[in-house]
Protein backbone atom coordinates (compact mmCIF):
# COMPACT_ATOMS: atom_id res chain seq x y z
CA UNK A 1 0.00 0.00 0.00
CA UNK A 2 1.46 3.41 -0.92
CA UNK A 3 2.34 5.67 1.99
CA UNK A 4 0.62 9.06 1.93
CA UNK A 5 0.24 11.97 4.33
CA UNK A 6 -3.19 11.87 6.02
CA UNK A 7 -5.81 14.37 4.92
CA UNK A 8 -7.81 14.16 8.13
CA UNK A 9 -7.46 13.05 11.74
CA UNK A 10 -8.21 9.46 12.65
CA UNK A 11 -11.60 8.93 14.34
CA UNK A 12 -11.93 8.08 18.02
CA UNK A 13 -13.40 4.71 18.93
CA UNK A 14 -17.10 5.39 18.45
CA UNK A 15 -18.46 2.01 19.22
CA UNK A 16 -20.41 1.58 22.43
CA UNK A 17 -19.42 -2.07 22.32
CA UNK A 18 -15.87 -1.02 23.12
CA UNK A 19 -16.86 0.56 26.43
CA UNK A 20 -16.94 -0.95 29.87
CA UNK A 21 -19.83 0.55 31.80
CA UNK A 22 -20.71 0.36 35.48
CA UNK A 23 -24.37 1.04 36.24
CA UNK A 24 -25.46 1.33 39.85
CA UNK A 25 -28.40 2.64 41.81
CA UNK A 26 -31.30 1.76 44.08
CA UNK A 27 -33.21 -1.52 43.54
CA UNK A 28 -35.98 -1.43 40.91
CA UNK A 29 -34.87 1.86 39.45
CA UNK A 30 -34.34 0.28 36.03
CA UNK A 31 -30.68 -0.70 35.84
CA UNK A 32 -31.28 -4.14 34.31
CA UNK A 33 -33.86 -2.81 31.86
CA UNK A 34 -31.36 -0.20 30.73
CA UNK A 35 -28.62 -2.82 30.32
CA UNK A 36 -30.95 -5.21 28.47
CA UNK A 37 -31.17 -2.71 25.62
CA UNK A 38 -27.49 -2.79 24.81
CA UNK A 39 -26.92 -4.51 21.46
CA UNK A 40 -26.88 -8.30 21.67
CA UNK A 41 -27.02 -8.33 25.48
CA UNK A 42 -26.25 -11.57 27.28
CA UNK A 43 -26.90 -11.50 31.02
CA UNK A 44 -24.75 -13.41 33.46
CA UNK A 45 -27.44 -13.52 36.12
CA UNK A 46 -25.83 -13.56 39.55
CA UNK A 47 -29.00 -12.79 41.47
CA UNK A 48 -32.63 -13.57 40.67
CA UNK A 49 -34.71 -10.61 39.56
CA UNK A 50 -34.67 -10.72 35.79
CA UNK A 51 -38.03 -12.47 35.58
CA UNK A 52 -39.78 -9.33 34.40
CA UNK A 53 -37.39 -9.02 31.48
CA UNK A 54 -37.16 -11.09 28.35
CA UNK A 55 -33.43 -11.44 27.92
CA UNK A 56 -30.81 -13.98 27.00
CA UNK A 57 -29.31 -15.08 30.28
CA UNK A 58 -27.14 -17.70 31.89
CA UNK A 59 -27.85 -18.37 35.56
CA UNK A 60 -24.48 -17.99 37.29
CA UNK A 61 -25.01 -18.57 40.97
CA UNK A 62 -21.48 -19.74 41.76
CA UNK A 63 -18.05 -18.53 40.73
CA UNK A 64 -17.49 -21.73 38.77
CA UNK A 65 -20.71 -21.06 36.81
CA UNK A 66 -19.54 -17.57 36.08
CA UNK A 67 -16.11 -18.77 34.91
CA UNK A 68 -17.74 -21.39 32.69
CA UNK A 69 -20.03 -18.74 31.17
CA UNK A 70 -17.08 -16.42 30.58
CA UNK A 71 -15.27 -19.24 28.83
CA UNK A 72 -18.21 -19.78 26.49
CA UNK A 73 -18.39 -16.07 25.77
CA UNK A 74 -14.64 -15.88 25.13
CA UNK A 75 -14.84 -18.79 22.66
CA UNK A 76 -16.79 -16.40 20.45
CA UNK A 77 -19.15 -18.84 18.80
CA UNK A 78 -22.31 -16.80 19.49
CA UNK A 79 -24.19 -13.71 18.32
CA UNK A 80 -23.87 -11.73 21.57
CA UNK A 81 -22.25 -8.30 21.56
CA UNK A 82 -22.58 -7.10 25.13
CA UNK A 83 -22.01 -9.03 28.35
CA UNK A 84 -23.98 -7.86 31.38
CA UNK A 85 -22.98 -9.03 34.85
CA UNK A 86 -26.01 -8.56 37.09
CA UNK A 87 -25.01 -7.90 39.86
CA UNK A 88 -21.30 -7.65 40.47
CA UNK A 89 -22.06 -7.40 44.20
CA UNK A 90 -23.17 -11.02 44.14
CA UNK A 91 -20.45 -12.01 41.69
CA UNK A 92 -17.91 -10.74 44.21
CA UNK A 93 -19.51 -12.81 46.96
CA UNK A 94 -19.19 -15.90 44.75
CA UNK A 95 -15.56 -15.02 44.12
CA UNK A 96 -14.92 -14.76 47.85
CA UNK A 97 -16.73 -18.05 48.56
CA UNK A 98 -14.77 -19.75 45.80
CA UNK A 99 -11.38 -18.63 47.09
CA UNK A 100 -12.26 -19.44 50.70
CA UNK A 101 -13.58 -22.89 49.70
CA UNK A 102 -10.48 -23.62 47.66
CA UNK A 103 -8.21 -22.82 50.58
CA UNK A 104 -10.36 -24.44 53.26
CA UNK A 105 -11.12 -21.25 55.17
CA UNK A 106 -14.38 -19.70 56.24
CA UNK A 107 -13.43 -16.08 55.84
CA UNK A 108 -10.67 -14.18 53.96
CA UNK A 109 -9.22 -12.95 57.25
CA UNK A 110 -8.66 -16.55 58.40
CA UNK A 111 -5.45 -16.80 56.38
CA UNK A 112 -2.33 -15.38 57.99
CA UNK A 113 -0.83 -12.06 56.87
CA UNK A 114 -3.96 -10.96 54.99
CA UNK A 115 -3.23 -13.51 52.28
CA UNK A 116 -6.91 -14.41 51.94
CA UNK A 117 -7.80 -10.84 51.00
CA UNK A 118 -5.03 -10.74 48.42
CA UNK A 119 -6.12 -14.04 46.86
CA UNK A 120 -9.71 -12.86 46.52
CA UNK A 121 -8.65 -9.54 45.06
CA UNK A 122 -6.31 -11.22 42.57
CA UNK A 123 -9.00 -13.62 41.38
CA UNK A 124 -11.50 -10.78 41.05
CA UNK A 125 -9.01 -8.66 39.17
CA UNK A 126 -7.99 -11.53 36.90
CA UNK A 127 -11.52 -12.40 35.80
CA UNK A 128 -12.82 -8.85 35.41
CA UNK A 129 -9.76 -7.79 33.42
CA UNK A 130 -10.19 -10.78 31.13
CA UNK A 131 -13.88 -9.99 30.65
CA UNK A 132 -13.14 -6.34 29.93
CA UNK A 133 -10.51 -7.27 27.36
CA UNK A 134 -12.90 -9.41 25.29
CA UNK A 135 -14.13 -7.79 22.07
CA UNK A 136 -17.61 -7.20 23.52
CA UNK A 137 -19.23 -4.41 25.43
CA UNK A 138 -19.27 -5.03 29.17
CA UNK A 139 -21.93 -3.71 31.52
CA UNK A 140 -21.51 -4.27 35.24
CA UNK A 141 -24.53 -3.71 37.46
CA UNK A 142 -24.32 -2.92 41.15
CA UNK A 143 -26.62 -1.76 43.92
CA UNK A 144 -26.02 1.56 45.66
CA UNK A 145 -25.09 2.09 49.30
CA UNK A 146 -24.74 5.26 51.32
CA UNK A 147 -21.51 5.63 53.20
CA UNK A 148 -20.51 8.26 55.75
CA UNK A 149 -17.22 9.80 54.74
CA UNK A 150 -15.26 11.43 57.53
CA UNK A 151 -12.96 14.21 56.49
CA UNK A 152 -10.74 16.50 58.50
CA UNK A 153 -13.45 19.13 58.65
CA UNK A 154 -16.64 17.13 58.94
CA UNK A 155 -18.56 14.26 57.49
CA UNK A 156 -20.97 13.72 54.66
CA UNK A 157 -22.89 10.92 53.03
CA UNK A 158 -21.68 9.53 49.75
CA UNK A 159 -23.54 7.09 47.50
CA UNK A 160 -21.38 4.44 45.89
CA UNK A 161 -21.61 0.95 44.38
CA UNK A 162 -22.27 -1.66 47.02
CA UNK A 163 -18.97 -3.51 46.92
CA UNK A 164 -16.23 -3.74 49.53
CA UNK A 165 -13.53 -1.12 48.92
CA UNK A 166 -10.96 -3.57 47.54
CA UNK A 167 -13.37 -4.96 44.95
CA UNK A 168 -14.77 -1.53 44.10
CA UNK A 169 -11.33 -0.07 43.47
CA UNK A 170 -10.65 -2.79 40.90
CA UNK A 171 -13.95 -2.08 39.14
CA UNK A 172 -13.46 1.70 39.11
CA UNK A 173 -10.05 1.18 37.55
CA UNK A 174 -11.49 -0.93 34.73
CA UNK A 175 -14.52 0.98 33.62
CA UNK A 176 -14.86 3.79 31.09
CA UNK A 177 -18.24 5.04 32.22
CA UNK A 178 -19.85 5.01 35.68
CA UNK A 179 -23.57 5.77 35.63
CA UNK A 180 -25.32 6.53 38.89
CA UNK A 181 -29.06 5.85 38.47
CA UNK A 182 -30.94 8.31 40.60
CA UNK A 183 -34.20 10.25 40.74
CA UNK A 184 -34.72 13.97 40.50
CA UNK A 185 -37.77 16.12 40.93
CA UNK A 186 -38.84 19.07 38.84
CA UNK A 187 -42.00 21.03 38.23
CA UNK A 188 -43.69 20.64 34.86
CA UNK A 189 -45.33 23.43 32.88
CA UNK A 190 -48.53 23.21 34.96
CA UNK A 191 -46.64 23.33 38.24
CA UNK A 192 -47.00 19.65 39.10
CA UNK A 193 -44.04 17.95 40.74
CA UNK A 194 -42.59 15.29 38.44
CA UNK A 195 -40.12 12.67 39.60
CA UNK A 196 -37.84 11.47 36.83
CA UNK A 197 -35.31 8.72 36.72
CA UNK A 198 -31.93 9.97 35.62
CA UNK A 199 -28.34 8.87 35.25
CA UNK A 200 -25.57 11.03 36.63
CA UNK A 201 -22.31 10.75 34.77
CA UNK A 202 -19.82 13.12 36.35
CA UNK A 203 -18.01 12.71 39.69
CA UNK A 204 -19.46 14.55 42.64
CA UNK A 205 -18.52 14.57 46.33
CA UNK A 206 -21.83 12.95 47.27
CA UNK A 207 -21.83 10.11 44.70
CA UNK A 208 -19.53 8.18 42.40
CA UNK A 209 -19.87 8.60 38.65
CA UNK A 210 -17.55 9.12 35.72
CA UNK A 211 -17.20 9.37 31.98
CA UNK A 212 -13.78 8.77 30.48
CA UNK A 213 -15.13 9.34 27.01
CA UNK A 214 -16.15 12.90 27.87
CA UNK A 215 -19.18 12.52 25.61
CA UNK A 216 -22.05 12.47 28.06
CA UNK A 217 -23.84 15.38 29.68
CA UNK A 218 -23.76 15.56 33.49
CA UNK A 219 -27.28 14.18 33.79
CA UNK A 220 -29.43 12.35 31.27
CA UNK A 221 -32.72 10.49 31.42
CA UNK A 222 -32.45 6.86 32.47
CA UNK A 223 -33.15 5.42 29.06
CA UNK A 224 -31.01 3.60 26.58
CA UNK A 225 -32.12 5.86 23.72
CA UNK A 226 -31.01 9.00 25.56
CA UNK A 227 -27.74 7.36 26.43
CA UNK A 228 -26.97 6.30 22.86
CA UNK A 229 -28.16 9.60 21.47
CA UNK A 230 -25.86 11.54 23.81
CA UNK A 231 -22.96 9.19 23.13
CA UNK A 232 -23.37 9.33 19.36
CA UNK A 233 -24.21 13.00 19.04
CA UNK A 234 -21.08 13.91 20.98
CA UNK A 235 -19.09 11.72 18.61
CA UNK A 236 -20.53 13.53 15.61
CA UNK A 237 -19.87 16.93 17.17
CA UNK A 238 -23.41 17.80 18.33
CA UNK A 239 -23.72 19.22 21.81
CA UNK A 240 -23.91 16.34 24.26
CA UNK A 241 -26.33 18.29 26.40
CA UNK A 242 -29.07 17.95 23.83
CA UNK A 243 -31.98 16.13 25.38
CA UNK A 244 -30.30 16.06 28.75
CA UNK A 245 -32.23 16.33 31.96
CA UNK A 246 -31.68 19.37 34.14
CA UNK A 247 -28.36 19.01 35.95
CA UNK A 248 -28.88 21.87 38.31
CA UNK A 249 -30.08 19.90 41.30
CA UNK A 250 -27.46 17.37 42.36
CA UNK A 251 -28.66 15.34 45.31
CA UNK A 252 -27.22 15.92 48.74
CA UNK A 253 -24.58 18.42 49.64
CA UNK A 254 -21.45 18.41 51.71
CA UNK A 255 -22.03 19.42 55.25
CA UNK A 256 -19.19 20.76 57.25
CA UNK A 257 -19.02 20.30 60.95
CA UNK A 258 -20.35 17.02 62.23
CA UNK A 259 -23.96 17.26 61.14
CA UNK A 260 -25.32 14.51 58.97
CA UNK A 261 -27.35 15.41 55.92
Amino acid at each position, binding site marked *: MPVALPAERSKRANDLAQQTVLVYGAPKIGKSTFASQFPGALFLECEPGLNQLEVFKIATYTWDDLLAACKLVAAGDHPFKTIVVDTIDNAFKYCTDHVCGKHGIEYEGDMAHGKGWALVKNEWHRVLTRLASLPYGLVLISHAVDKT*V*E*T*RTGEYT*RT*QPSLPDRAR*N*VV*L*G*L*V*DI*ILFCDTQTRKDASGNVVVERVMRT*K*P*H*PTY*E*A*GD*RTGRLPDVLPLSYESFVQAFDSAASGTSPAAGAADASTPPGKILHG*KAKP
Partner: protein
Amino acid sequence: MSPGVSPFSPSIPCTSDACDRIDSPVGHKHSACTPDLTGKSLLTFSALNTFRNCPRKYKHRYIDQLQGRERADTLAFGSLIHAALETWYRATDDADRLWTILDDLDRAYPNRAGDPHAKRTWQLARAMVSGYAARYPQEDFEVVEVEKVFQAEIRNPDTGRPSQTFVMAGKVDGIVRLDGELYLLEHKTAGSIDANYLDKLWTDTQIALYSHYLRELGSPIVGVIYNVLLKTRIQQHAGESQEEYEARRAVLAAKNKSGRSTAKRQLPETDDEFQARLAEWYAKPEAFHRERIYLSEDRLAMLQDEVWEITQQYLDARRRGKWLLNTSNCFSFQRPCAYLPYCQSGFNPNVRDNLFEIRPPHEELEGLDDAATGETLENPF
Protein backbone atom coordinates in the same frame (compact mmCIF):
# COMPACT_ATOMS: atom_id res chain seq x y z
CA MET B 1 -1.17 33.63 38.23
CA SER B 2 -3.60 31.71 36.08
CA PRO B 3 -4.24 28.00 36.62
CA GLY B 4 -2.06 26.20 34.17
CA VAL B 5 1.19 27.79 35.23
CA SER B 6 3.67 25.87 37.31
CA PRO B 7 4.88 27.24 40.61
CA PHE B 8 8.36 26.15 39.77
CA SER B 9 8.95 28.36 36.82
CA PRO B 10 6.33 30.77 35.54
CA SER B 11 7.29 30.09 31.93
CA ILE B 12 6.78 26.34 32.10
CA PRO B 13 3.22 25.06 31.55
CA CYS B 14 1.84 23.19 34.51
CA THR B 15 2.11 19.43 34.19
CA SER B 16 -0.86 18.81 36.42
CA ASP B 17 -3.71 16.71 35.10
CA ALA B 18 -5.84 18.52 37.62
CA CYS B 19 -5.40 21.80 35.80
CA ASP B 20 -7.45 20.46 32.92
CA ARG B 21 -10.31 19.69 35.19
CA ILE B 22 -12.38 22.80 34.92
CA ASP B 23 -15.38 20.67 35.82
CA SER B 24 -13.77 19.40 39.00
CA PRO B 25 -16.53 18.44 41.40
CA VAL B 26 -14.89 20.11 44.36
CA GLY B 27 -13.80 23.20 42.48
CA HIS B 28 -10.27 23.27 41.26
CA LYS B 29 -8.03 25.57 43.26
CA HIS B 30 -4.62 24.51 42.19
CA SER B 31 -2.54 26.20 44.83
CA ALA B 32 0.53 24.65 43.24
CA CYS B 33 -0.06 27.31 40.63
CA THR B 34 0.23 30.07 43.19
CA PRO B 35 3.58 31.76 43.77
CA ASP B 36 5.09 31.32 47.21
CA LEU B 37 6.18 34.10 49.51
CA THR B 38 9.80 34.30 48.57
CA GLY B 39 9.56 33.75 44.83
CA LYS B 40 11.06 30.31 45.35
CA SER B 41 9.11 27.13 45.87
CA LEU B 42 8.75 25.91 49.43
CA LEU B 43 9.97 22.38 49.91
CA THR B 44 8.92 20.49 53.00
CA PHE B 45 10.49 17.33 54.31
CA SER B 46 7.32 15.37 53.49
CA ALA B 47 7.48 16.50 49.87
CA LEU B 48 11.18 15.74 49.63
CA ASN B 49 10.78 12.34 51.20
CA THR B 50 7.78 11.55 49.02
CA PHE B 51 9.75 12.36 45.88
CA ARG B 52 12.68 10.25 47.10
CA ASN B 53 10.42 7.27 47.82
CA CYS B 54 8.33 7.48 44.66
CA PRO B 55 8.41 10.33 42.11
CA ARG B 56 4.96 9.34 40.87
CA LYS B 57 3.55 9.65 44.36
CA TYR B 58 5.05 13.11 44.54
CA LYS B 59 3.23 14.03 41.34
CA HIS B 60 -0.09 12.71 42.67
CA ARG B 61 0.22 14.47 45.99
CA TYR B 62 2.06 17.70 45.34
CA ILE B 63 1.42 18.53 41.70
CA ASP B 64 -2.04 17.10 41.08
CA GLN B 65 -2.90 17.68 44.76
CA LEU B 66 -4.85 14.46 45.10
CA GLN B 67 -5.69 13.12 48.52
CA GLY B 68 -7.90 10.22 49.55
CA ARG B 69 -11.35 11.41 50.52
CA GLU B 70 -11.25 9.83 53.93
CA ARG B 71 -9.30 10.90 56.96
CA ALA B 72 -6.77 8.53 58.52
CA ASP B 73 -7.70 7.98 62.16
CA THR B 74 -4.19 7.37 63.41
CA LEU B 75 -3.08 10.73 62.06
CA ALA B 76 -6.11 12.39 63.62
CA PHE B 77 -5.19 11.16 67.10
CA GLY B 78 -1.55 12.24 66.72
CA SER B 79 -2.68 15.72 65.60
CA LEU B 80 -5.03 15.99 68.55
CA ILE B 81 -2.26 15.23 71.04
CA HIS B 82 0.12 17.60 69.27
CA ALA B 83 -2.48 20.37 69.55
CA ALA B 84 -2.95 19.59 73.24
CA LEU B 85 0.80 19.74 73.90
CA GLU B 86 1.03 22.99 71.96
CA THR B 87 -1.50 24.56 74.33
CA TRP B 88 0.30 23.00 77.30
CA TYR B 89 3.67 24.52 76.41
CA ARG B 90 2.36 27.83 75.14
CA ALA B 91 0.62 28.57 78.43
CA THR B 92 3.23 27.48 80.97
CA ASP B 93 2.17 30.32 83.33
CA ASP B 94 -1.51 29.44 83.22
CA ALA B 95 -2.57 27.33 86.21
CA ASP B 96 -5.75 26.30 84.35
CA ARG B 97 -4.11 25.16 81.15
CA LEU B 98 -5.06 21.50 81.64
CA TRP B 99 -8.73 22.49 81.87
CA THR B 100 -8.40 24.49 78.67
CA ILE B 101 -7.02 21.40 76.93
CA LEU B 102 -9.71 19.10 78.32
CA ASP B 103 -12.38 21.55 77.16
CA ASP B 104 -10.79 21.57 73.71
CA LEU B 105 -10.89 17.78 73.64
CA ASP B 106 -14.56 17.78 74.63
CA ARG B 107 -15.27 20.16 71.79
CA ALA B 108 -13.32 17.98 69.34
CA TYR B 109 -15.70 15.05 69.96
CA PRO B 110 -19.21 16.49 70.14
CA ASN B 111 -20.73 13.21 68.90
CA ARG B 112 -18.89 10.95 71.36
CA ALA B 113 -22.09 9.82 73.05
CA GLY B 114 -23.39 8.19 69.89
CA ASP B 115 -20.12 7.12 68.29
CA PRO B 116 -18.14 4.43 70.16
CA HIS B 117 -14.96 5.12 68.19
CA ALA B 118 -15.08 8.84 68.92
CA LYS B 119 -15.80 8.08 72.57
CA ARG B 120 -12.82 5.76 72.88
CA THR B 121 -10.49 8.32 71.25
CA TRP B 122 -11.83 11.09 73.46
CA GLN B 123 -11.36 9.01 76.62
CA LEU B 124 -7.85 8.02 75.64
CA ALA B 125 -6.83 11.57 74.74
CA ARG B 126 -8.21 12.94 78.04
CA ALA B 127 -6.42 10.30 80.07
CA MET B 128 -3.19 10.79 78.16
CA VAL B 129 -3.01 14.55 78.62
CA SER B 130 -4.15 14.37 82.24
CA GLY B 131 -1.45 11.78 82.93
CA TYR B 132 1.09 13.92 81.12
CA ALA B 133 0.16 17.00 83.16
CA ALA B 134 0.59 14.99 86.37
CA ARG B 135 3.93 13.59 85.22
CA TYR B 136 5.48 16.85 84.07
CA PRO B 137 3.98 19.67 86.19
CA GLN B 138 7.37 21.34 85.96
CA GLU B 139 10.07 20.83 83.37
CA ASP B 140 13.81 20.91 83.74
CA PHE B 141 14.01 22.83 80.47
CA GLU B 142 12.90 26.32 79.50
CA VAL B 143 10.50 26.55 76.55
CA VAL B 144 11.95 28.91 73.93
CA GLU B 145 9.58 28.35 70.97
CA VAL B 146 6.43 26.31 70.38
CA GLU B 147 5.31 25.02 66.97
CA LYS B 148 7.89 27.09 65.18
CA VAL B 149 7.51 27.43 61.41
CA PHE B 150 10.68 28.26 59.50
CA GLN B 151 12.02 28.81 56.01
CA ALA B 152 15.68 28.40 55.18
CA GLU B 153 17.89 28.29 52.12
CA ILE B 154 18.81 24.95 50.62
CA ARG B 155 22.48 25.20 49.72
CA ASN B 156 24.73 23.49 47.25
CA PRO B 157 27.08 21.66 49.63
CA ASP B 158 30.05 22.17 47.28
CA THR B 159 29.71 25.89 46.65
CA GLY B 160 27.55 26.99 49.58
CA ARG B 161 25.29 28.90 47.14
CA PRO B 162 21.55 28.81 47.77
CA SER B 163 19.22 26.97 45.44
CA GLN B 164 17.57 29.30 42.93
CA THR B 165 14.42 27.19 42.94
CA PHE B 166 13.67 26.00 46.45
CA VAL B 167 13.66 27.00 50.07
CA MET B 168 13.13 24.47 52.83
CA ALA B 169 10.02 25.05 54.95
CA GLY B 170 9.07 23.15 58.05
CA LYS B 171 7.57 23.23 61.48
CA VAL B 172 9.07 21.91 64.70
CA ASP B 173 7.07 21.04 67.81
CA GLY B 174 9.28 23.10 70.09
CA ILE B 175 12.69 24.49 70.91
CA VAL B 176 13.81 24.26 74.54
CA ARG B 177 16.87 25.31 76.53
CA LEU B 178 18.41 22.71 78.80
CA ASP B 179 21.64 23.25 80.74
CA GLY B 180 22.29 26.33 78.60
CA GLU B 181 21.96 24.51 75.27
CA LEU B 182 19.19 24.43 72.71
CA TYR B 183 17.30 21.23 71.81
CA LEU B 184 14.41 20.48 69.57
CA LEU B 185 11.45 19.08 71.48
CA GLU B 186 9.68 16.48 69.34
CA HIS B 187 6.40 14.90 70.47
CA LYS B 188 5.55 11.36 69.45
CA THR B 189 2.64 9.06 70.25
CA ALA B 190 3.51 5.37 70.10
CA GLY B 191 1.81 2.02 70.64
CA SER B 192 4.87 0.62 72.43
CA ILE B 193 8.50 1.44 73.01
CA ASP B 194 11.34 -1.04 72.71
CA ALA B 195 15.00 -1.03 71.70
CA ASN B 196 14.06 -0.95 68.01
CA TYR B 197 11.85 2.05 68.54
CA LEU B 198 14.65 3.96 70.21
CA ASP B 199 17.13 2.91 67.50
CA LYS B 200 14.69 4.14 64.90
CA LEU B 201 14.74 7.61 66.37
CA TRP B 202 18.28 7.91 64.99
CA THR B 203 16.88 7.46 61.50
CA ASP B 204 14.51 10.40 61.95
CA THR B 205 15.97 12.35 59.06
CA GLN B 206 13.33 15.02 59.20
CA ILE B 207 14.19 16.26 62.62
CA ALA B 208 17.94 16.12 61.98
CA LEU B 209 17.44 18.13 58.82
CA TYR B 210 15.27 20.69 60.57
CA SER B 211 17.94 21.07 63.25
CA HIS B 212 20.43 21.88 60.52
CA TYR B 213 18.23 24.60 59.02
CA LEU B 214 17.42 26.07 62.41
CA ARG B 215 21.13 26.30 63.09
CA GLU B 216 21.49 28.21 59.85
CA LEU B 217 18.78 30.57 61.07
CA GLY B 218 20.73 31.27 64.25
CA SER B 219 19.41 28.70 66.74
CA PRO B 220 22.38 26.49 67.67
CA ILE B 221 20.48 23.23 68.20
CA VAL B 222 22.69 20.52 69.74
CA GLY B 223 20.22 17.66 69.86
CA VAL B 224 16.65 16.46 70.06
CA ILE B 225 14.52 15.54 73.06
CA TYR B 226 11.97 12.98 71.95
CA ASN B 227 8.89 13.25 74.11
CA VAL B 228 7.08 9.93 73.68
CA LEU B 229 3.52 9.39 74.93
CA LEU B 230 2.27 5.82 74.89
CA LYS B 231 -1.17 4.83 73.68
CA THR B 232 -2.62 2.27 76.05
CA ARG B 233 -4.44 -0.69 74.60
CA ILE B 234 -6.82 -1.14 77.50
CA GLN B 235 -10.46 -1.11 76.54
CA GLN B 236 -13.63 -0.23 78.39
CA HIS B 237 -15.27 -3.44 79.64
CA ALA B 238 -18.52 -4.04 77.79
CA GLY B 239 -19.99 -6.28 80.52
CA GLU B 240 -21.89 -9.55 80.01
CA SER B 241 -25.14 -10.00 78.16
CA GLN B 242 -27.82 -11.94 80.06
CA GLU B 243 -27.09 -15.03 77.90
CA GLU B 244 -23.35 -14.83 78.50
CA TYR B 245 -23.92 -14.46 82.21
CA GLU B 246 -26.29 -17.44 82.32
CA ALA B 247 -23.88 -19.60 80.35
CA ARG B 248 -21.01 -18.69 82.69
CA ARG B 249 -23.15 -19.28 85.76
CA ALA B 250 -24.21 -22.69 84.44
CA VAL B 251 -20.56 -23.71 83.95
CA LEU B 252 -19.66 -22.56 87.47
CA ALA B 253 -22.72 -24.26 88.96
CA ALA B 254 -21.83 -27.53 87.23
CA LYS B 255 -18.43 -27.44 88.91
CA ASN B 256 -19.98 -26.84 92.29
CA LYS B 257 -21.11 -29.76 94.46
CA SER B 258 -24.29 -27.90 95.41
CA GLY B 259 -25.14 -27.39 91.73
CA ARG B 260 -25.51 -23.66 92.40
CA SER B 261 -23.38 -20.60 91.81
CA THR B 262 -23.26 -17.20 93.49
CA ALA B 263 -21.69 -15.58 90.40
CA LYS B 264 -23.03 -12.11 89.63
CA ARG B 265 -23.57 -10.67 86.21
CA GLN B 266 -20.62 -8.51 85.12
CA LEU B 267 -22.02 -5.06 84.33
CA PRO B 268 -20.53 -2.70 81.73
CA GLU B 269 -17.73 -0.50 83.05
CA THR B 270 -18.98 3.06 83.54
CA ASP B 271 -17.15 5.98 81.95
CA ASP B 272 -15.91 7.11 85.36
CA GLU B 273 -14.61 3.63 86.21
CA PHE B 274 -12.86 3.43 82.87
CA GLN B 275 -11.31 6.89 83.30
CA ALA B 276 -10.06 5.79 86.72
CA ARG B 277 -8.46 2.70 85.19
CA LEU B 278 -6.91 4.79 82.42
CA ALA B 279 -5.59 7.26 84.99
CA GLU B 280 -3.99 4.38 86.88
CA TRP B 281 -2.36 3.21 83.64
CA TYR B 282 -1.05 6.69 82.83
CA ALA B 283 0.41 6.99 86.33
CA LYS B 284 2.85 4.18 85.48
CA PRO B 285 6.43 5.29 84.81
CA GLU B 286 6.51 3.61 81.39
CA ALA B 287 3.51 5.58 80.07
CA PHE B 288 5.78 8.48 79.11
CA HIS B 289 9.35 8.47 77.94
CA ARG B 290 11.98 11.09 77.16
CA GLU B 291 14.94 10.26 74.95
CA ARG B 292 17.78 12.67 74.24
CA ILE B 293 19.67 12.30 70.95
CA TYR B 294 22.68 14.35 69.91
CA LEU B 295 23.34 15.32 66.31
CA SER B 296 26.75 14.73 64.77
CA GLU B 297 28.24 17.22 62.32
CA ASP B 298 28.97 14.41 59.85
CA ARG B 299 25.37 13.34 59.77
CA LEU B 300 24.11 16.85 59.18
CA ALA B 301 26.60 17.37 56.33
CA MET B 302 25.53 14.08 54.75
CA LEU B 303 21.88 15.09 54.93
CA GLN B 304 22.59 18.42 53.30
CA ASP B 305 24.23 16.55 50.45
CA GLU B 306 21.22 14.30 50.13
CA VAL B 307 18.73 17.17 50.05
CA TRP B 308 20.69 18.88 47.30
CA GLU B 309 20.85 15.69 45.24
CA ILE B 310 17.12 15.10 45.57
CA THR B 311 16.31 18.63 44.45
CA GLN B 312 18.51 18.09 41.37
CA GLN B 313 16.73 14.83 40.58
CA TYR B 314 13.42 16.60 41.05
CA LEU B 315 14.37 19.38 38.63
CA ASP B 316 15.37 16.76 36.09
CA ALA B 317 12.07 14.87 36.49
CA ARG B 318 10.12 18.07 36.10
CA ARG B 319 12.08 19.22 33.04
CA ARG B 320 11.52 15.91 31.31
CA GLY B 321 8.00 15.38 32.62
CA LYS B 322 8.99 11.91 33.87
CA TRP B 323 7.52 10.80 37.16
CA LEU B 324 8.69 7.26 37.63
CA LEU B 325 6.69 4.70 39.56
CA ASN B 326 8.69 3.13 42.35
CA THR B 327 6.66 -0.02 42.79
CA SER B 328 8.91 -1.29 45.57
CA ASN B 329 7.41 1.48 47.67
CA CYS B 330 3.77 0.54 47.06
CA PHE B 331 3.59 -1.53 50.25
CA SER B 332 6.01 0.16 52.59
CA PHE B 333 4.80 0.49 56.21
CA GLN B 334 2.93 -2.82 55.75
CA ARG B 335 0.02 -1.12 54.05
CA PRO B 336 -0.75 -0.26 50.47
CA CYS B 337 0.07 3.21 49.21
CA ALA B 338 -3.03 5.40 49.11
CA TYR B 339 -2.57 5.85 45.35
CA LEU B 340 -2.37 2.14 44.57
CA PRO B 341 -5.83 1.89 42.90
CA TYR B 342 -4.99 4.88 40.71
CA CYS B 343 -1.58 3.56 39.63
CA GLN B 344 -3.02 0.05 39.16
CA SER B 345 -5.74 1.42 36.90
CA GLY B 346 -3.18 3.01 34.59
CA PHE B 347 -4.36 6.43 35.83
CA ASN B 348 -8.02 5.98 34.96
CA PRO B 349 -9.68 9.35 35.64
CA ASN B 350 -12.69 7.53 37.07
CA VAL B 351 -10.49 6.30 39.91
CA ARG B 352 -8.87 9.69 40.37
CA ASP B 353 -12.13 11.63 40.48
CA ASN B 354 -14.07 9.20 42.66
CA LEU B 355 -11.51 8.07 45.22
CA PHE B 356 -9.58 11.30 45.60
CA GLU B 357 -10.28 14.95 46.08
CA ILE B 358 -8.15 17.96 45.40
CA ARG B 359 -6.64 19.34 48.58
CA PRO B 360 -3.65 21.63 48.86
CA PRO B 361 -0.54 19.93 50.19
CA HIS B 362 1.51 21.06 53.19
CA GLU B 363 -1.46 21.20 55.51
CA GLU B 364 1.07 21.03 58.33
CA LEU B 365 2.10 24.58 57.50
CA GLU B 366 -1.32 26.02 56.80
CA GLY B 367 -2.44 29.15 58.53
CA LEU B 368 0.63 29.49 60.70
CA ASP B 369 2.54 32.68 60.96
CA ASP B 370 6.08 32.45 59.82
CA ALA B 371 8.08 34.23 62.45
CA ALA B 372 10.80 34.92 59.92
CA THR B 373 8.61 36.82 57.48
CA GLY B 374 5.62 37.72 59.60
CA GLU B 375 3.45 36.43 56.77
CA THR B 376 1.02 33.57 56.70
CA LEU B 377 1.77 30.32 54.93
CA GLU B 378 -1.59 29.56 53.45
CA ASN B 379 -0.75 28.23 50.03
CA PRO B 380 2.89 27.44 50.43
CA PHE B 381 3.54 25.22 47.43
